[in-house]
């Protein structure tokens, strides 16, 4: 019984990690860029959600849509301003720029809003819980599972069964051939950032519902963890991001359950390190052949 309860907790945390990890994975697949600012885009999504709920007074679904749209647009803007000029420079300078953008987002938000933690208004989402024997499951948990499943299915259909998705897969396969086929890489890259940003925004709002202490640095830890999850799953692969996120969520929750909760990072990361040593390109990753 306790096991099932913890399983649900792990599923909740893992779903949130998966939503954020997807953003890393999508961008990496298309640009081979580790977008270190993505964790802070996630924070931005949560804060825009708070803005929508309080200042615009919107209910849950419109808030979610507004936040996803705004955050996705900001992610596209970041790409246009900061990453695009570096597309032909060394890969590391783009990574360093991403680190810088992340720092600007989190510290800029701290400077502009002050240090008080944020949360969503009371009654924003109806909170009740259903009991099945000793297991209780809350509406927020159900919401998180359902919404994550919906978004992931949508993303999967988009990437696998539309022309846009085909172009996204094509650009990660051969970025030089894509323009020759008459597809604009800029548009595809913008679409990728829009998707990644809006998934992160959804993750941010759901995170704010599940763990209602939002501060400008919330993206730092969560973002880096989700990134590691994406890598363990095999970065650049949608299934990998989901599996890695869920795996990290389960490992953390069960480590906290069987040992002390302060050991969860230690155990989770040690395990991930072992996975990476055994399978250097992650669970679903494919090794790139290198020629001399």
């Amino acid at each position, binding site marked *: 019984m306790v096991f099932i309860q913890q399983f649900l907790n792990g599923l909740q945390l893992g779903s949130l990690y998966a939503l954020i990890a997807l953003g890393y994975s999508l961008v*990496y697949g298309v640009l081979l860029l*580790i977008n270190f600012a993505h964790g802070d885009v996630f924070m931005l999504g949560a*804060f825009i959600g*708070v*803005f929508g709920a*309080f*200042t615009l*007074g919107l209910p849950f679904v419109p808030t979610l849509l507004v936040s996803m749209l705004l955050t996705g647009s900001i992610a596209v803007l970041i790409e246009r301003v*900061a990453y695009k*000029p*570096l597309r032909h*420079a*060394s890969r*590391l*300078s*783009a*990574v*360093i*720029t991403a*680190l*810088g*953008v*992340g*720092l*600007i987002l989190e*510290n*800029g*938000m*701290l*400077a*502009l*809003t*002050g*240090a*008080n*933690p*944020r949360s969503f*208004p009371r009654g924003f989402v109806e909170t009740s819980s259903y009991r099945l024997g000793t297991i209780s499951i809350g509406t927020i948990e159900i919401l998180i599972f359902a919404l994550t499943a919906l978004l992931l299915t949508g993303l999967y259909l988009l990437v696998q069964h539309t022309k846009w998705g085909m172009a996204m897969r094509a650009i990660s396969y051969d970025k030089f051939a894509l323009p020759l086929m008459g597809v604009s890489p800029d548009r595809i890259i913008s679409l990728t950032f829009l998707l990644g940003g809006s998934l992160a925004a959804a993750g941010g709002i759901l995170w704010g519902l599940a763990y209602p202490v939002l501060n400008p640095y919330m993206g*730092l830890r969560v973002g*880096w963890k989700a*990134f*590691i999850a994406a*890598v363990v799953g095999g*970065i650049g692969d949608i299934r990998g991001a989901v599996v890695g996120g869920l795996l990290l969520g389960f490992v953390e929750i069960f480590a906290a359950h069987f040992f*002390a909760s*302060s*050991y969860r*990072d*230690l155990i989770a*990361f*040690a395990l*991930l*390190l072992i996975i*990476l*040593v055994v399978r*250097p*390109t*992650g669970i679903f990753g494919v090794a790139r052949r*290198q020629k*001399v």
Partner: protein
Amino acid sequence: MASTTTQTQVTGVRRIRVIDRLAVQLAETPVLSYLLGALVAVGLEAYFGYYIARLVGLRRAPVLFGSIAVLENFGNLDLSGILSPLIPASSAPAEPWAMSGRALINVLRVFISDIPPALLTLLQVLAYDIIIFVLPILVVGLLARRPVRWVVTRVPFLLTMLLQLVLLYIVIRIWGSLSDYRNLVLMFIGINVILTISLNLINGYMGEFSVGHAAFMAVGAYVSAVLTMWLFTNNAVFGEALLPWVTSLPFGIGNSIGFIFALLVGGLAAALVSLLVAIPSFRTRGDYLAIVTLALLFIVLSFINNLNAIGGARGLNGVPLWSTVTWVYVFTLLALFTVRNLVNSTFGKGIIAIREDEIAANLMSVNTKRVKLVAFMYSSFLAGIAGGLFAHVLAYVNPGTFGILKSTEVLVMVYLGGMGSITGSVVAAVLFTILLEALRPLGVLKWVIIPLILILLMLFRPQGLFGNREINLNWGSGRRAKKDMDYEASLMEKDASDAIVTD
């Protein structure tokens, strides 16, 4: 008509040549004579700094070349009202948009009203800096050039180098003697130099991407702090010293022995921990190795957080204040010297070969595993030493200090200076540390401005300030001095021949 154009052209060439020659002279002037100038400058400040500061209208001599004094004018800037009405913490205010607009206007008003006093302070500190530092260094440097060169050509290089290092030390000590804060900044500079060159070994010369350098620093800091506290000092955490006789050795050498021992053990511990990265690096490369380093950083921090015997998340208090400017100086020099020799050696060529192409390097009989192992371990050893020095500066270490932000700081310094440039690393570490301190009055905005500078740097100069080149300074080797003399003589000859032509 024709003759006037040639005339202006000739004067144009002349002017360029004057500037050129000044630049050449400045670059070719031996470091030794600049150091003499710096000695005069800091001496001047020690005796007349206060009066000159009063003369230009400052209340006291500026601490860090006036950078803090200028930015303190903006210290009352509080932006937090701008977005907090729109993203409220508890309940939405009545008129959020109006409130936020008013806050924005208010911030702008405060900012504009801060500009004139800041400009005034800027002029004042510029005047102070020019009188105290720039003029003496340039004038004495250029005046002493010829005699210094005469001496340098006749003295063994080793002796010149030693003289220069001693002079630099004296200059640093006199500069630092004016305030404790300056000494603190000097120690941070040294520590950051060590960190930067050690990370440059991995990220710059070997071409890997390590984002977990703070982990090794943390290991070194904790191990050495625990050792000095446990073995050599009485404190609340570990009780009585285990080996009190060491510190009671005569002439105060006991502390030194204890400190060096603790630092070295800290460095070795960090080197051992680095095996956790070095061994995966045999198979894992690029972004995946970056994750390994990142995961290691989280593991180390989490481990320390869970060790309640050494304070856990609360941190370790009561570390003896054994780091001094002298110690930091000595270790910085050692680090620079060893890394320079390492990358210039045949072994170092192997490190660079791995950056260029690992498979090809392997084919060319570079033992890539061994090279990687040594590079990672030595880099981490240095980071551990830097951590140990750091722990003994503030008397307090906690795991939060060594987070991702610290790693990012070191990364920034490496990329600012240029990957694969030792002198670049030194310049970047010095500039960045001073910048970090100078921006302190701005509070959280500091961490908006620094990344902004970084992004602009990456957009306009992605290879860093110096790329992979070294700054060519004249450290006074005899051969170099001879070459300079010949060059200057040839310039003069050329001038003479030009003069004949124009006449």
